[in-house]
């Protein structure tokens, strides 16, 4: 489904000089697969996701989605950003219906579908609220619903739960897993939380820093459907968490001159 081959990104720095953010990334993601990218801050996780989304061009290498090369963003790849990036002048309903209206759907029908999605992410009754009237967790639910609304085949999620408190984070993880188990979209999920990656994913891609490279790809062979309370007791789960934690705890390499 997604084929990333030899993707490298070098940023031009102010006052000359370049900065190698990610280096020779090769990765294949199959249709319906849930893959997490795990790595320390600054290792280039967001950069990689933006490149797959077509928002940022790679310096070298190429991306194909369903065999077609990526040249820009498109409704087949739906992003969910850490910053929510909701349209503040639109209500919850307006935000979720936005992509459908953009695709040319009649207002009545778009709103009907948006209402159903809003209920699915647990925000029934908040349709007429503006983003400034919502909590962080509610905003992130709206952001997810807004992207799910136009039914992209691929979800690109950049630390979507990173800014949330532990309790809300766990709730949204459960809800995301439920949604995913229903329609099995292909998901590329960026996180720096090990337990989150293990709980959600089929595979976890561990990245190293300076420059961002793939350090290891770990299969998460835990049965589905997964339930958090059962999972926490399983030694296989604990083992995976510990293994991955060791991997990303390695001392960061210095920037090479």
């Amino acid at each position, binding site marked *: 489904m997604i084929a990333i081959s030899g993707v490298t990104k070098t940023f031009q720095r102010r006052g000359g000089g370049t900065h190698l953010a990610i280096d020779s990334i090769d990765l294949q993601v199959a249709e319906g697969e849930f893959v997490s990218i795990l790595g320390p801050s600054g290792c280039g996780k967001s950069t990689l996701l933006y490149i797959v989304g077509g928002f940022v061009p790679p310096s070298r290498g190429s991306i194909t989605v369903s065999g077609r090369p990526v040249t820009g*963003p*498109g*409704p087949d790849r739906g*992003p969910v950003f850490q910053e929510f*990036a909701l349209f*503040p*002048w639109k209500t919850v309903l307006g935000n979720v219906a936005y992509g459908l209206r*953009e695709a040319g759907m009649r207002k009545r029908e778009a709103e009907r579908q948006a209402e159903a999605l809003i209920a699915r992410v647990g925000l029934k009754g908040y349709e007429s609220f503006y983003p*400034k009237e919502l909590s962080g967790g509610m905003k992130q639910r709206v952001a997810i619903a807004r992207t799910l609304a136009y039914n*992209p085949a691929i979800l690109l999620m950049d630390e979507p739960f990173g800014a949330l408190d532990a309790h809300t984070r766990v709730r949204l993880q459960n809800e995301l897993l439920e949604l995913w188990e229903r329609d099995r979209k292909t998901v590329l999920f960026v996180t720096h939380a090990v337990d989150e990656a293990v709980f959600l994913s089929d595979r976890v891609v561990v990245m190293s820093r300076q420059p961002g490279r793939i350090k290891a790809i770990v299969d998460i062979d835990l049965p589905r459907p997964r339930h958090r309370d059962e999972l926490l007791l399983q030694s296989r789960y604990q083992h995976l968490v510990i293994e991955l934690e060791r991997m990303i705890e390695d001392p960061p390499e210095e920037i090479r001159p």
Partner: protein
Amino acid sequence: MTAAALATRTRATLLPGLPPLLACLALLLAWQLYARTLSMGGIPDALSTIRELPAILGDRESLADILDSIRRMAIGFAIALAFSVPLGLFMGRSRTVAAMVNPLLMITYPVPKAALMPIIMLWFGVGDASKLLVIVLGVSLPVIYHAYQGARAVEEKMLWSARAMGMSGPARLARIVLPASLPEILVGCRTGIVLALITMITSEMIARQTGAGNILFNALDMAQYETVYAMILVISALGIVLDMLFEYVRGLLTGWAEPRHDLLAPSL
């Protein structure tokens, strides 16, 4: 509703109107006392100035003059908005456009627009065109500047979200950048209203034909100080009414925005 809730509600609804009213009364009182005790020839007292108001507002010719001023101001303001907002938004989203327009703004910003009036009159005569042009110049600069700043600050991820939905560049400018910068654009508009008022009066001072400024400065020439002061009151009242109207419209347009703190727009 409980008594406490009622009390807070009345306090909230009464207070915003009260302090400005008290301030106005205090000012009028101070004026009255000053004119009475230290009376110098040129300063009429507050009461006789207020008594002069019905004469001006009841006079068909003066009223027509004032309405003429308001008409010019509205047209000038509308023309300025029509090109300043798109220009500012373009500048905010394109470095090339900004690099081209910015130097022009830097040159024209510090020039008092009314000082250009004599030159403009050489080209366009003493009629409506010159006065309109001065108003347009006065209004457009702050609006361009704030639209530019607003468009520059639009969150990139918001634009990316729209791109992922398949929205084209021009559509993003109109439907994402414009609404996202609207709160900032309105800050520019508020400054623009004040400048429109100032340039309106000064243009009429220099090119006397019609208008509120015309009444004011003719009266000054003829030493009719009651009329002069009454006109100043009328113009101030016009400013206050316009500002209140603007705040109302702002509330309608950008009620969704996070509250912000501006030097020019303190919220009571």
